[in-house]
């Protein structure tokens, strides 16, 4: 999303789905996993919208959809490619939108080559470095930068590239070489057309296992419901992200929505449905290793010597990322306060640096390899919830110390005496060196704070009661831990890096007997203040001269007017349907972003029915139902001077103000490491060969072939038939993720008391599975058991004349809690999307047998046999 539009957040909000004329939910099971927001989909359906669900299984979402299309897990790019092809071949794009608001007319460099020419690779592939460089993907006559930090990730290869001399050459706000007739053979539109020509309904049907008519029905519905007067929306969630090409799946939807003119408009957009209550918040103010608050890139050890150098290499000249200096300096002021001065680069030196990939999976492997010695495990349960849970547990068992903060003793805290490895004898309690500190955590009802939900909306929650016993909030824990560390550093005198700790401002007011830091004051610091110490109203007021401080520039305004905006709770009955006074959403309380696109290039609504934000000629400013995502008084006809910088370089008719060129990117010249266009690859483990290219899987995916993370043989190999079935995992309404919060609750546990797998009657017959009895499921990594749910909601997939069966299962179970069961994640491997390092949990291979799994030593013997058949070494 970030690379296509400029910001890594849902473009719309769930309430807006009610305005949609066609909703395609794909890669998400919204009714089950976002039931409250789903009411707006139901509302749209009741208002006559067409509602389509594309999912391998017929789920509770499918049950209320007008159309359910079952497809093979992991083939969404082909399906979406089919839709793109349909739009282009039948000339159904929203031309006026496409020509003015996207980079379709832009002419690409002459040396760009497509996967169609290079059999599955784009130009710029370096076999030796296992990655791409981006120089051939650029616009002709202009190098693009890619929204800072917004890039959905970066390889160190791309990182090194940041040094290259950039040629930023917007001419009066437009890229220098364009063909607004879209005829030039190297313009993005034509490149796209050629790229997707192969995704015919028949080909797509053979890859995805759908019927050509089903693809056409979806494509037609979207096209019929897009244009001036109508809009269609996509909603997706982790069934798009959790693949070795997850970012490209989302990119495919972005391309469709840009072509159909559905971004920035009511009832349109891409609704990214996030997971945990504040998962959006945890990327905005990140728990990720490679960004700082507000998607500012994390400085790199080799690449960034000085603040100036950092801003130059990471910032853009044009667009809002041209203000990276303001955002960064204000952040440093918030963190280091008076210590941050112009002379010392505002303490830029004190920021930690990254030296490569330090994502969670790398870190776990680092533990096994002895490189990572201690671990804080807070708000997660990797022993159940992370891919290849067996490897996760071995990682925990290799640590010197482990701190687990949770409500109860979850599997990740009990692994040393209760785990499949202990049960089988593969690990022994007495041989595990890890010292485990289990610390009780306060629940959200027991502390003040905010959640940033799936639609960028910050909502405050007030403490309802004191935490019981020793339970403490996250804020309390880290704040007081910080104080202890500061005291220790002070006591020890000058240690290396001592300033990094000493200079940190660490002075929130403390309240009550337990000395709880004041969460409101944390939010106020995030919001930021000006030179007088007054809360800032918006990020446009940030300065790069050290006079403003701001903990996260995109949240600037959340404490506007010294009032906690996120705590506003005005009922939607008492205000417009957009409900701007409920909570506060970033940026600047905008609910639909890029909403300048809801008006035509002249600033008038595309149609009365779809009016949202428009230019009021009389008042000379943008107005509408939502906060305009545009400079308020910038005229639609505003034409920048050549050489203009920052937002001044963005033309009055370019809605994507975070991008260097203000355009929506159909083609992404910079920022995605596995290709400027989505292209179809098979999942890392697949029972069939790639029909499109010789290149089987995403060449840039991250692989970790190592003990305990072996991969099932690929279909082309000699033993390819050993794991004939597709395995995929998902959630149930009744449970939550790794189960720590639901398997411990009687009222939820009784609703889904046992781990099960869903299979078609045909597979059941083939393997002799009996309904309600047990099945054993295995990969080369592990073997688990589950109750059998035979259901017609799951169907065999017919691919290219071959029938492929699938085994689907929820991943909520583990060995602790009221209801227990084997963990699906034991079966999974670690192979990651190269951009965002997310694991592939949907679309692997496995085999299934009737009956319970072997236990104890027999389990180890069973696994040895399996591995021997796959010609793998002994474990």
């Amino acid at each position, binding site marked *: 999303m970030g690379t296509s539009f400029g910001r890594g957040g849902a473009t719309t909000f769930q309430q807006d789905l009610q305005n949609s004329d066609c909703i395609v939910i794909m890669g998400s099971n919204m009714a089950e996993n976002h039931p409250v927001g789903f009411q707006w989909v139901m509302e749209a359906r009741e208002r006559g919208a067409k509602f389509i669900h594309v999912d391998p299984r017929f789920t509770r979402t499918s049950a209320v959809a007008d159309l359910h299309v079952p497809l093979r897990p992991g083939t969404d790019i082909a399906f979406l490619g089919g839709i793109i092809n349909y739009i282009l071949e039948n000339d159904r794009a929203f031309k006026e939108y496409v020509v003015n608001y996207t980079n379709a007319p832009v002419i690409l460099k002459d040396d760009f080559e497509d996967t169609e020419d290079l059999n599955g690779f784009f130009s710029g592939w370096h076999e030796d470095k296992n990655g791409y460089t981006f120089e051939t993907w650029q616009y002709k006559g202009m190098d693009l930068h890619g929204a800072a930090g917004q890039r959905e990730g970066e390889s160190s290869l791309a990182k090194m590239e940041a040094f290259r001399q950039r040629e930023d050459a917007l001419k009066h706000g437009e890229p220098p070489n364009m063909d607004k007739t879209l005829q030039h053979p190297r313009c993005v539109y034509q490149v796209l057309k050629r790229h997707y020509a192969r995704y015919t309904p028949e080909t797509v049907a053979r890859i995805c296992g759908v019927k050509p008519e089903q693809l056409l029905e979806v494509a037609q519905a979207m096209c019929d419901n897009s244009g001036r007067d109508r809009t269609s929306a996509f909603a997706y969630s982790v069934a798009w992200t959790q693949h070795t090409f997850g970012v490209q799946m989302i990119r495919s939807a972005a391309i469709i929505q840009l072509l159909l003119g559905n971004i920035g408009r009511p009832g349109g957009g891409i609704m990214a449905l996030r997971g945990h209550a504040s998962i959006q918040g945890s990327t905005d103010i990140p728990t990720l290793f490679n960004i700082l608050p507000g998607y500012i890139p994390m400085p790199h050890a080799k690449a960034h010597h000085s603040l100036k150098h950092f801003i130059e290499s990471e910032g853009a000249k044009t667009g809002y990322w041209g203000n990276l200096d303001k955002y960064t300096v204000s952040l440093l002021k918030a963190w280091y306060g008076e210590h941050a001065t112009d002379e010392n680069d505002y303490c830029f030196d004190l920021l930690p640096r990254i030296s490569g990939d330090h994502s969670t999976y790398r870190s776990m492997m680092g533990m096994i390899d002895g490189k990572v010695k201690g671990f804080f495990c807070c708000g997660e349960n990797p022993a159940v919830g992370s891919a290849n849970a067996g490897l996760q547990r071995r990682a925990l068992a290799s640590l010197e110390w482990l701190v687990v903060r949770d409500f109860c003793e979850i599997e990740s805290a009990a692994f040393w005496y209760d785990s499949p490895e202990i049960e089988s004898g593969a690990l022994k309690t007495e041989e595990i060196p890890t010292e485990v500190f289990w610390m009780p955590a306060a629940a959200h009802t027991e502390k003040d704070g905010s959640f940033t939900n799936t639609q960028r909306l910050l909502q405050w929650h007030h403490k309802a009661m004191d935490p019981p016993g020793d339970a403490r909030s996250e804020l309390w824990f880290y704040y007081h831990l910080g104080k202890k560390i500061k005291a220790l550093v002070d006591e020890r005198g000058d240690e290396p890096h001592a300033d990094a700790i000493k200079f940190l401002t660490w002075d929130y007011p403390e309240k009550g007997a337990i000395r709880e830091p004041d969460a409101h004051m944390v939010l106020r610091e995030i919001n930021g203040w000006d030179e007088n110490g007054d809360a800032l109203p918006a990020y446009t007021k940030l300065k790069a001269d050290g006079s403003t401080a701001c903990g996260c520039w995109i949240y600037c305004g959340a404490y506007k007017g010294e009032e906690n905006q996120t705590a506003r709770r005005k009922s939607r009955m008492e205000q417009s349907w957009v409900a701007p006074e409920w909570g506060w959403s970033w940026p600047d309380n905008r609910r639909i972003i890029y909403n300048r696109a809801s008006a035509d290039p002249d600033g008038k609504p595309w149609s009365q029915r779809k009016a949202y934000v428009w230019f009021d000629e009389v008042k000379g400013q943008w107005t509408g139902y939502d906060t305009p995502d545009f400079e308020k008084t910038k005229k639609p006809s505003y034409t920048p001077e050549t050489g203009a910088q920052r937002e001044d370089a963005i033309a009055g008719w370019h809605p994507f103000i975070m991008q260097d060129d203000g355009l929506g990117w159909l083609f992404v010249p910079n920022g995605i490491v596995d290709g400027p266009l989505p292209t179809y690859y098979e999942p890392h483990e697949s029972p069939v060969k790639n029909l499109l290219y010789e290149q089987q899987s995403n060449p840039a995916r991250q692989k970790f072939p190592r003990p305990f993370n072996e991969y099932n043989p690929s279909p082309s190999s000699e033993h390819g038939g050993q794991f004939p079935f597709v395995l995929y995992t998902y959630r149930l309404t009744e449970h939550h993720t790794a189960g720590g919060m639901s398997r411990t609750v009687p009222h939820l546990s009784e609703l889904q008391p046992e781990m099960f797998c869903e299979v078609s*009657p045909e597979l*059941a017959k083939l393997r002799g599975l*009996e*309904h*309600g*009895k047990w099945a054993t499921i295995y990969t080369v990594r592990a073997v688990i058991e589950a109750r059998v749910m*035979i*259901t*017609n909601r799951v169907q065999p997939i017919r691919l290219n004349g071959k029938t492929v069966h699938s085994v689907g299962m929820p991943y909520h179970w583990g060995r602790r809690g009221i209801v227990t069961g084997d963990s699906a994640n034991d079966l999974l491997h670690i192979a990651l999307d190269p951009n965002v390092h997310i694991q592939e949990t949907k679309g692997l291979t496995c085999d299934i047998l009737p009956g319970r799994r072997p236990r104890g030593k027999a389990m180890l013997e069973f696994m040895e046999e399996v591995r021997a058949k796959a010609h793998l070494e002994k474990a």
Partner: protein
Amino acid sequence: MTSTAHGNGQINAQTLHEDRPGYYGRPIVKPPEWTDLIPTYFFTGGMAGTCAALGFAERIAKNDALARTMLFGAAAGTAISAYCLIADLKRPERFVNMLRVFKPTSPMSMGVYIFSAFGGSVTLALASELTGVLRPIGRIFEGIAALFGPAMSCYTAVLIGDTVVPAWHYGRESMPALFAATSASTAGGWGLLFGPSGRSNSAQRLALIGGAGVMLALEKLHQELGPRQKEAYQTRQAKMFGDTAKMLNMAGLATSLFARKVPVMGRIAGAMLLAAGVCERFGVFRAGCISAEDPSYIIDAQRERIAREGNRASSN
């Protein structure tokens, strides 16, 4: 986990459940929560009621010996009944709550009053009979007990008829006759078994009338039920009890014919009739449970009615 939590939660090995009626074959109405104390109560209560009636009749006829036997029967029946009734309450300490309201819509409420009046009278009559104190008043209570006796014997038929249990509800019109007849045959049986030799002829006659009545009433019940609902009585334990009841009843009747010639035959006949009565009650009870557990009884009965009278509950 108890079985009450999930009716018949077993997993059917065939995955697709179309072959089971209704919703996965789960009961539509709840089978009674009652234990075997309740059919026992039907038996002892029914017998006691008619024992009291015959006893008082014999008292009037000056056959004090048989009257005394029958009074003992009434008393024994009452005692066991009281135990069953209270023990089956899940909160027996709250028995008295039933005496706080008088509710004509509830056969159980009415029954409690019938039982209280009847049981109270029997107890007082027995006390007087055993102690010899206040004989005339004792006799009056015997009379009151006799007056309530038939009600005591029959109200339980209304009690079960006035439920949604198909095997009971759809036999609701014949059930009182069956209960009356069984009460007669078992009261007669009591008299035959324990009555004074040679002086129990009226017990024998009552047994004969009752026994024959049972056969007739059963026939009527089956007619009322119709072939579909009748199946409940021909299934598993209901059938076993029912068949045994019939056999014992016939055998008891036949044997009782020799009661006057061979006294011991009378006693055997009495025992057989009592046993038949027990089986009869258990048979009816089990049939009720079976019909409530299998939703097809309800569905078929109600669908038949819809076919006859049109649908009232749903509209489209």
